[in-house]
């Protein structure tokens, strides 16, 4: 349980910082090209807790999947899980791209960064979480 919480917190901190750096700084100008698709800044800030909750849900469910089916494989298993989950998510993004007027480059940058993000999340979780069976002889 302790390792689960540690893995969750470490991955959450990474996801939060990465999300802020990518969406709040690096891609700021790309988002500005389609203002009609986004809430005004002040409105986003008033709904900021939903971002925190959404990121917590992603990390919690990721760690749960790792713990219940991939634990013991270490960093490699975590990275593998991150890749599989994110490529499936790219499929979902393609679906959104078909129905929402999102710029193609946002889809591309979002998918590339999402893949890097989930690889790192997987590596963090895999490095921290060790199943109890491998801890006791």
């Amino acid at each position, binding site marked *: 349980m302790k390792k689960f919480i540690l893995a969750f917190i470490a991955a959450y901190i990474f996801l939060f910082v990465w999300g802020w750096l990518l969406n709040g700084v690096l891609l700021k100008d790309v988002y500005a090209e389609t203002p009609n698709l986004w809430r005004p800044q002040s409105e*986003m800030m008033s709904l900021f807790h939903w*971002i925190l909750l959404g990121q917590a849900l*992603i990390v*919690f469910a990721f760690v749960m*999947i790792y713990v219940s089916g991939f634990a013991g494989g270490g960093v490699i298993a975590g990275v593998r899980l991150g890749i599989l*989950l994110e*490529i499936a998510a790219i*499929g979902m993004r393609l679906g959104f791209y078909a129905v929402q007027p999102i710029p193609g480059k946002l889809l591309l940058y979002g998918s590339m960064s999402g893949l890097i993000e989930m690889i790192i999340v997987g590596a963090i979780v895999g490095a921290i979480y060790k199943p109890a069976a491998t801890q006791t002889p």
Partner: protein
Amino acid sequence: MNWTRFFIAFIAAFIFLFVFGFLWYGTLMQGAHHEVPTLLRPEADFKSYFGWLILGHIVMAFFFTLLCARYVPTGCPGAGALLGTLVGLVYAGPHLISFAVQPLTAKIVSGWIVGAVIQFAVAGAIIGAIYKPGARKTT
């Protein structure tokens, strides 16, 4: 890896994901989606992007099937449904984030989240029921 079973499971998952998506997001939630017309492509525009929707579902079904095959190597509908539920929750997270940054209604986001969890839970159960690595005898 039993590739024959894998391929059958992938096709079944693709069909289910696509049909469920059409019924849930495209039919049941159609009214809710029309509350935010600026966030949607116009009908004619959508038709020209339909190929992306199909490609997206193929990618989603293929990699989700691969994930199930690795997660539940022995094949089991219950374990597949559990994995699907967790995957649905992973994808529900970005929906909550979208609610904070896009002018979506609470009804739409709730529908997306419930839809994602049901969609992947059932798809996981289908894959778990079909994919059986032990079905093919190997020496």
